């Protein structure tokens, strides 16, 4: 069964600095999607960025980028120029592409604090 591991329960970053959140996953599949979701204090789940496993190029969305290492099964999120509004819980998630087992599998989350 697929698993997603976030080994950093909490992280802290200074405003305007860069922070990297780690995520590793375990799967035997070759086609899948990876996601980072942000959950601010409002608890709304917001999709930050997605990566298709077949794409070698790392996804970027403005200040957010990923380092996708398929062989190492690693999917880290880099937040550049951190802002106070980035403070939130961040969840890494995995979903296989098609097939019977197709549910989104979440990690346990990393709580990011942004210091002014």
């Amino acid at each position, binding site marked *: 069964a697929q698993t997603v591991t976030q080994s950093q329960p909490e992280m802290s970053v200074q405003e305007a600095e860069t922070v990297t959140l780690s995520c590793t996953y375990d799967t035997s599949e070759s086609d899948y999607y990876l*996601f980072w979701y942000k959950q601010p204090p409002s608890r*709304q*789940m*917001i*999709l930050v960025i997605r990566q298709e496993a077949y794409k070698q190029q790392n996804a970027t969305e403005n200040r957010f980028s990923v380092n996708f290492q398929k062989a190492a099964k690693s999917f880290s999120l880099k937040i550049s120029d951190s802002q106070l509004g980035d403070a939130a*819980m961040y969840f890494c998630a995995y979903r296989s592409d098609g*097939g019977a087992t197709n*549910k*989104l599998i979440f990690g346990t989350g990393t709580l990011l604090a942004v210091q002014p």
Partner: protein
Amino acid sequence: SQTIHQWPATLVQPVGSPLSLECTVEGTSNPNLYWYRQAAGRGLQLLFYSVGIGQISSEVPQNLSASRPQDRQFILSSKKLLLSDSGFYLCAWSVRWRGGYTFGSGTRLTVV
């Protein structure tokens, strides 16, 4: 564009009372629909998912049930709430079999 609506936003219910949370999706057809619960602000537990009208899969045994009476409507219910049912409930939808999920704004349920 697709939107997902979830209500109510907040609910306080006494132990033993019934529950009905509703989720609707607009702008898409044949979505996969999901109910999650999040306790203590950490970790999401998948409760139910549905791939079509009347098709419900339960992930964990519990005091709750789900129904999908229409293609884009997903309802979470309970006949008698327990204290342990308190939590934050999220509805989500996805394109069938691929891509990410889009979440509703959630319902904060407190059972007293």
